[in-house]
């Protein structure tokens, strides 16, 4: 049976319709390039919509001492210095413009008494820095980008899933995707491709992430020859819901602590004072998540295995105004009125710091013509991401990857996609539907989540990681023989086949990175190597997929030039040092 495939050609093809993808597409389209965006969901519903607390940008609206230097300083310190300093510098310098641009496009942020954009405190930010709209900042951002895209000449393909990237010799040539609605195929030939497909939190069971976060783009690019870095760095957010079971892992924004909430163990002790006497409840996420984990292990956990979070002292009116979504979420899902009682929280998988290795200026990967931005890319966050730094990341580097793709596309001819490769991929994708026996994707997904929790969770050690590696390799073998019942029409069982394949590949990369990094740093906590080691701080672990499987090698972390390195020698945050000098 010959397939009825649709063929399209673009200058710039963006895979991913979250904040990073939409911002990239805007950049290319505003400059007149023929641009398309693909997303697995409807427009405006990508994972970005869930972001709550805010977007970090040193606008200095409430704390005038703030500036790019301090934002840069906070980011690198939280990253435990294995991030790309150049990305951190660009990010800190450009984030304010990206936020103001959103305001110009129609975003309506909360205001200060002077009528400026309001900024709230967040974990490990030296100043009040997060521009926000209550606790629904992600929605405001994605809606604004959606509304902007609608004014431009961008073709938006909704509910479509890319399964493979194609190359023309060494350079990128485009992708194939299926429509979720009816399983039809479309082939997109493009001069440049931007991957903006988000993270892979769904490899874990207890997670704040949406179903979309299966790491497709990172896996597709990895198979096409692009490099992954820092894969071992997976962020646990300290405060996910613990109860009811169906809600386990759903996020409770850091904004609750930002607005004054505090953590206690079952004995009523404010335990964060012990783990970080200075920043306490607003310490960085790796420290707070480990703090809760240690309390539970020591037998001081709450009934459902977490810690208490209490913001009742702020009063009902304040809470309902500042955290309306949280008030509503806990009330409707867990029957808890957070204005009246404390509630339970426990760490949940939240963000993947690792990902595609990119050039800091353009988002270029190691494959010519292939760019990446947002959560699927590595480099900015190192060993631990600061809250609020992802929404700014997707805006700053989404724009830059769009511009990088545009420049590349301008000087190149339309590539060609080999038809035999297309046919082979169509066959591969359809095969699970015609198998009469095979593995169940739902079951494999559960097995993967079990392996990741058991071997590559918050607490790791070499022996367990090695075991995990063996188990995930067996699992990878099983993912080749999956079966899907039913038709090609909107069939989640069939869609799950490819999600699982992607997550298992990246899961293996997480475990391999974690085995190699024989130290504890940021999100990576190894009980057999409990200390942060100087020599390990000088490398990133980079992985490449070859005919023999995954190969891993250390790459030196780029060394900071003196004009940036001096910012860390002041004995305090640069903004504080400046004002101290003035006084």
């Amino acid at each position, binding site marked *: 049976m010959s397939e009825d495939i649709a063929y399209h050609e673009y200058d710039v093809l963006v895979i991913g319709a979250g904040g990073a993808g939409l911002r990239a597409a805007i950049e290319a389209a505003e400059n007149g390039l023929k641009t398309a965006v693909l997303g697995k969901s409807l427009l405006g519903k990508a994972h970005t919509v869930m972001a709550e607390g805010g977007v970090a940008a040193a606008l200095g609206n409430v704390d005038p001492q703030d500036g790019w230097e301090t934002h840069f300083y906070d980011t690198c310190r939280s990253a435990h210095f294995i991030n790309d300093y150049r990305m951190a510098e660009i990010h800190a310098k450009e984030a304010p413009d990206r936020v103001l641009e959103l305001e*110009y496009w129609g975003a309506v942020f909360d205001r200060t008494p002077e009528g400026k954009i309001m900024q709230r405190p967040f974990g490990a930010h030296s100043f009040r820095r997060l521009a926000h*709209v209550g606790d629904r900042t992600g929605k405001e951002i994605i809606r604004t980008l959606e509304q902007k895209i609608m004014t431009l000449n961008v073709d938006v393909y909704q509910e479509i899933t890319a399964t493979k990237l194609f190359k023309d010799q060494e350079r990128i040539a485009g992708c194939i995707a299926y429509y979720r609605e009816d399983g039809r195929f479309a082939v997109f030939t493009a001069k440049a491709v931007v991957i903006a497909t988000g993270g892979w939190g769904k490899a874990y069971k207890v997670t704040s992430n949406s179903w979309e976060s299966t790491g497709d783009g990172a896996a597709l690019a990895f198979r096409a020859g692009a490099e992954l870095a820092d894969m071992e760095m997976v962020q646990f957010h300290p405060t996910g819901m613990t109860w009811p*079971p169906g809600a386990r892992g759903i996020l409770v924004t850091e904004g609750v602590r930002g607005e004054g909430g505090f953590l206690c163990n079952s004995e009523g002790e404010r335990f964060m004072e012990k783990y970080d006497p200075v920043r306490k409840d607003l310490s960085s996420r790796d420290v707070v998540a480990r703090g809760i984990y240690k309390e539970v292990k020591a037998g001081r956990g709450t009934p459902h295995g977490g810690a208490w979070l209490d913001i009742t002292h702020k009063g009902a009116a304040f809470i309902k105004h500042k955290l309306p979504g949280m008030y509503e979420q806990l009330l409707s899902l867990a029957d808890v009125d957070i204005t009246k009682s404390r509630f339970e929280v426990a760490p949940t998988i939240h963000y993947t710091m690792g990902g595609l290795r990119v050039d800091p200026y353009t988002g270029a990967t190691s494959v010519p013509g292939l760019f990446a931005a947002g959560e699927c890319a590595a480099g900015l966050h190192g060993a631990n991401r600061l809250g609020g730094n992802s929404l700014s990341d997707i805006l700053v580097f989404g724009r830059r990857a769009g511009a990088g793709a545009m420049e590349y596309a301008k000087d190149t001819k339309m590539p060609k996609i080999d038809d035999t490769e297309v046919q082979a991929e169509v066959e591969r994708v359809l095969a699970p539907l015609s198998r009469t026996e095979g593995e169940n994707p739902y079951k494999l997904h559960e097995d993967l989540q079990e392996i990741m929790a058991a071997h590559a969770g918050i607490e790791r050690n070499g022996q367990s990681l090695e075991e995990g590696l063996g188990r995930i390799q067996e699992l990878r073998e099983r993912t080749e023989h999956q079966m899907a019942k039913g038709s090609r*029409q909107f069939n989640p069982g069939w869609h799950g086949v490819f999600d699982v394949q992607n997550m298992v590949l990246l899961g293996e990369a997480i475990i391999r990175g974690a085995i190699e990094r024989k130290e504890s740093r940021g999100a990576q906590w190894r009980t057999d190597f409990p200390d942060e080691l100087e020599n390990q701080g000088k490398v990133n672990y980079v992985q490449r997929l070859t005919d023999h499987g995954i190969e891993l090698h250390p790459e030196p972390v780029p060394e900071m030039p003196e004009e940036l390195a001096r910012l860390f020698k002041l004995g305090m945050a640069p903004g504080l040092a400046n004002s101290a000098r003035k006084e």
Partner: protein
Amino acid sequence: MPDEITLSVYRGDKSGGQEVEYKVPIQTGMVVLDALHFIQAHDAPDLAVRWNCKAAHCGSCSAEINGSPKLLCKTRVDDYVGEVIHIRPMHSFPVIKDLVTDVSWNYEKLRQVPAFQPAIKAPFTLQQRDVDRIQEFRNCIECFLCQNICHVLRDHDAKDRYWGPRLMIRIAELEMHPLDTGDRLDLLKGAAGVGMCNITKCCTVVCPQGIDITDNGIIPLKERVADVYWDPLGGLVRKLHK
């Protein structure tokens, strides 16, 4: 509480379909979407349902539960103990498969709304009290439950004459932005058809975000349209002072 609940879920596509019953073990605090996920994992892997956030942020999981338009991820199973839970797709949009409907019409109309046209460059100086109202509207999650329930669209299928409540509050958020210079009143009176709304408030009742669509959005828009068309000079003055 019983340990099992019966869900009767619409299964079908363009060509028709019917409800099929599934039994699901009850877990404390379970939402209807959890129950559907259980069915997918155990009985019907190809059961089609949209979802994303599972936290009432994205507006993907709209459906009709025992006849009421609701979000599947926000509706608790224990609200229906002792009953069969009937789950059907939104009535006002064509079914694609099972609980998934074709909502593309809404996006077509959203595209036709003239965008925000600010009078000045950012940064803006805006007081919180001046943006409270538009922030209420921008809290919309585009679940289209209001579009689904509005009788003008649902019973009279007048999509060619009225764009529906979601589009009204989109227009309202722009019209009420203190720095917007656009003019959408002709559109409102004409193609968007604000006059078709007869203020039954059903949209406001179903809105999962609690947006006061009718009182805060549609009625003020109707007044603006009436002002301009009955009193052109007054309307002009008002626009200049906006």
